[in-house]
């Protein structure tokens, strides 16, 4: 059937100008990225790194002075696309990147007579996220219809939640990275509600017509609305980062910004410091990366502050602006003519969503340790904030780290191995920590083998890379390669004596005051031992021999 449907859609091409679409769009899930970037695949594992959030734009001292008089008020609406197997209200598979209109059915196409049936996973994920964001859950919530016309919205309404969201009144804690001043912040969460995504428009190259791809129509979303608690681009970016982290920790979404699985719309106004009422609110869309959130907000704060300063505050109007990544600025997308009236009313095709306290409790019990709890635990374990943020940032890294210390490895050493050698390896090989062959068990073994002197640190680093790439056990490798450290003083002494006797010239120079040559002798002995001599013992015996008056 899908081929017939696809043909139908293609036959129903309609002519319009690309730009006219932007003006007429009324939904708030819209962003221009949906109009043609769907083929880009990305290695987005790194986008989540808070260190990628760019520092503030350079500003003149004058601007800095102006900015000092104003305070920004920032709220964020985040759409999280849920990684359920099927769509929210039909049994179509929910997979990104399929050929247009191959994952559709009468329900998500809005055919006459088709009815929605709620996927219970959507409720489960809503409850999970609501609990993770410290919200109160509505044991009785409902769906509503949000009505507007747009070709990517098959039914002419979006099934959403209006006055009774599944969760509300929560908060989220974040740690600001040290390079941006550090510090702990708590931002309020107004509400979390369930809704469905719209399809996508594909515009022809000539701009003569557009086509509708409904693969995304009906994909479940959770919309998270924050309180207007953020005051800077960095805070906002860190908030968005935390949303991604929480979604990934919970396993409710892949949180991929480039694919549109995590979409942030920013609301921002500024006001003179000391003023209680809010200024005029501007909405910014098209924020495809955390750095874009941060920079777009900083740009917007400067723009608005300058207008205030120049007495042109009336030029700050309620509007939606787009972030232009190339030009690094925001531009007007559309001015809002009064409030859009979506004519919300209760969705009569779906019964109320009733949750029992037992159900909520069972979900609560199944929640994993969340980023904030992990950070506080790592901090309590004695790790510095830099290490804490690094390890807790990525759920896979955190799980790996926890597994390594779970096997008894020393915290500090485990952190160092993961953050330095392993991180470097992952970066070079463009891998994620899930791809490596070195099990947490073996990393713990490796750390222990070095600590108890079985192998030297140097040997340890050498075999690390082989373990990362090929796997295997530390014990097995030590045995196969005969890597056990030489700790027998007699054996080391034998080698020292041999090296000293084979280098009479250097010995003479040493004894005549060139003590730096100790390093040369140590190197020779190490070489002879194939790197296996215990360095402490070696140096102790070497010094004895070099300084012996014989």
């Amino acid at each position, binding site marked *: 059937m899908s081929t017939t449907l696809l043909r139908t859609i293609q036959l*129903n091409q309609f*002519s*319009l100008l690309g730009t006219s679409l932007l003006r007429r769009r009324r939904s708030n899930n819209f962003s221009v990225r949906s109009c043609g970037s769907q083929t880009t695949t990305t290695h987005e594992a790194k986008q989540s790194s808070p260190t990628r959030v760019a520092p503030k734009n350079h500003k003149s001292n004058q601007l800095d002075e102006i900015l000092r008089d104003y305070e920004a008020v920032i709220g964020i609406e985040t759409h999280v696309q849920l990684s359920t197997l099927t769509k929210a209200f039909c049994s179509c598979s929910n997979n990104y990147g399929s050929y247009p209109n191959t994952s559709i059915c009468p329900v998500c196409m809005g*055919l*006459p*007579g088709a009815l929605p049936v709620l996927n219970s996973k959507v409720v489960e994920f809503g409850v999970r996220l609501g609990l993770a964001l410290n919200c109160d859950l509505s044991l009785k919530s409902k769906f509503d219809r949000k009505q507007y016309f747009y070709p990517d919205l*098959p039914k002419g309404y979006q099934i959403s939640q209006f006055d009774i969201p599944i969760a509300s009144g929560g908060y989220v804690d974040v740690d600001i990275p040290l390079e941006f001043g550090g510090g702990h912040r708590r931002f309020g969460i107004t509400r979390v509600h369930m809704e469905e995504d719209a399809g996508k428009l594909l515009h022809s190259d000539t701009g003569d017509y557009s086509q509708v791809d409904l693969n995304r129509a009906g994909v479940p979303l959770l919309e998270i609305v924050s309180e207007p608690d953020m005051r800077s681009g960095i805070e906002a970016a860190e908030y968005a980062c935390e949303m991604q982290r929480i979604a990934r920790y919970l396993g409710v979404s892949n949180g991929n910004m480039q694919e549109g699985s995590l979409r942030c719309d920013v609301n921002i106004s500024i006001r003179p410091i000391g003023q209680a009422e809010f200024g005029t609110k501007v909405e910014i869309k098209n924020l495809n990366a955390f750095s874009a959130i941060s920079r777009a907000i900083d740009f917007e704060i400067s723009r608005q502050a300058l207008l205030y300063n120049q007495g042109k505050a009336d030029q700050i109007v309620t509007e939606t602006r787009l972030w232009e990544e190339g030009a690094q600025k925001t531009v007007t997308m559309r001015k809002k003519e009064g*409030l859009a009236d979506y004519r919300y009313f209760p969705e009569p095709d*779906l*019964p109320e969503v009733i949750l029992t306290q037992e159900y909520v409790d069972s979900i609560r019990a199944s929640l994993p340790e969340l980023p904030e709890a992990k950070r506080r635990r790592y901090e309590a374990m004695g790790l510095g904030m830099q290490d804490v943020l690094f390890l807790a940032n990525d759920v896979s890294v955190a799980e790996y780290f926890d597994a390594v210390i779970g096997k008894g490895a020393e915290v500090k050493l485990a952190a160092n191995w993961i953050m330095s050698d392993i991180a470097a390896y992952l970066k070079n090989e463009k891998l994620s920590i899930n791809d490596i062959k070195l099990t947490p068990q073996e990393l713990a073994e490796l750390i222990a083998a070095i600590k108890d002197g079985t192998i030297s640190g140097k040997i340890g680093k050498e075999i690390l890379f082989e373990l990362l790439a090929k796997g295997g056990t530390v014990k097995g490798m030590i045995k196969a390669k005969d890597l056990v450290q030489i700790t027998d003083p007699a054996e080391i002494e034998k080698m020292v004596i041999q090296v000293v006797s084979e280098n009479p010239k250097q010995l003479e120079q040493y004894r005549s005051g060139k003590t730096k040559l100790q390093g040369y002798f140590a190197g020779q002995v190490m070489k002879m031992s194939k790197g296996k001599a215990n360095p402490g013992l070696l140096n102790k015996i070497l010094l004895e021999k070099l300084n012996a008056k014989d």
Partner: protein
Amino acid sequence: MLSTLQPPRSLSLLPLRRFQISKTIVSAASSKTIDTSVISPPQSQILTTRRSLLSGETTAVEIAKSYLSRIRLTEPQLKCFLHVSENVLKDAQEIDQRIAKGEELGPLAGVLIGVKDNICTQGMPSTAASRILEHYRPPFDATAVKKIKELGGIVVGKTNMDEFGMGSTTEASAFQVTANPWDLSRVPGGSSGGSAAAVAARQCMVSLGSDTGGSVRQPASFCGVVGLKPTYGRVSRFGLMAYASSLDVIGCFGSTVADAGMLLHAISGYDRFDSTSSKQDVPEFQSQFLSVDHFESKPLNGVKVGIIRETLEDGVDSGVRSATQEAASHLEALGCILTEVSLPSFSLGLPAYYVIASSESSSNLSRYDGVRYGNQVMAEELNKLYECSRGEGFGGEVKMRILMGTYALSAGYYDAYYKRAQQVRTLIRKDFKAALEQNDILISPAAPSAAYKIGEKKDDPLAMYAGDIMTVNVNLAGLPAMVLPCGLVEGGPSGLPVGLQMIGAAFDEEKLLKVGHIFEQTLKGSSFVPPLLANVA
């Protein structure tokens, strides 16, 4: 089981017996003018078909041929069907093959069924009588249709209706006006006018309609057939093109209570594709359909019947009123205990109904935007595409209700209209509940008048809306109700039928069917066969 059913009869496909009328108002209960000995109670066409197929008396193909030829003869005048299936004979052949092979037959084997055009039939045009869906063929069967087909039923075709169910005369069809078989100058009622008229004219044995505010019951009354509106949730709405989702139900037409009941049984039950369908058990209604010989002297002894006072007040035709009162007397004669009940919220129902139905329809009809299917008018610009596709695709009545609904849901008006209407709805539910705690069933006329002339109320929508007063409250309360012919009033060549509405408690269709069947089988001198058939024959 068969022994308890009506005695086998030769399959008289056309039980042609013209109703004799010699008085101004002939109530069926008063049998003075009719020689009752020549009129036997109406027979279930479903059971008759089954028996004659199983006995080898006739074949499914023969039956189908005779119905098709009657459609050919009567359709030019009646215009009940928007589409007649090309597969009727093929489907009938399959039934005959099954019989020849001795395979088991479904309970609806060989039964010819008309399906209202707003109920999806796979590959067969389904337009809801709207220009905006002209030529649209759904890729799936509605659950009710699927069940019918699985049980051996044959879809004869798609019946005419008011566009998207919005109307009470079937004149609001974008394609044709259906005539009432009792008087071709009169409307068959609506919105399921095609389904009602087709059963009345024996163009099919039974049919499916949909009832949002009376769209099964009122045309049943106008056409002299049985119309059954089940409890909301009893039948899956999957595949029914939504008009007002919280009120819509698929209902059944038959020339007997038994036929309507057996069709309901076939389509009832929980459906995982409709979250508003109910998991309530569906009882085996068939045991209620005893033959007259098995009735006791007072077969409805002790059944408490409440006659709704508000439905017999001003604005109801005197003929309708007396037919209802005589029907009540007949029930009393059968042993029922009759009392008068009052539903204080009764008059509030109509405005609340029009607010809710219009609001929901304004939303449900948004999907007809010309982008994916149906009527599309090419345009240079998006809003023009919407304007032209919808402007040309929808008829006047539909546009008016979309406008009313859009207004009622607008910011600032929601509380005054939609929310208030929902409060009224709660009130109406309460009143019904109280009345049904005191009574087994409630009765009222099905409509304030018998069928009126085509065009008579076309330009007076308020007068037309007022005709729904008897039926809308039942939808607001989600209750089951059945309309069955109870008498004739003056009009047309041989009188016009009038229906009695019986309202039951939620999910108690069984009681309605029991009372209705006994009422029907014992109604002396009644044979609600329209004169048209006699003329044709």
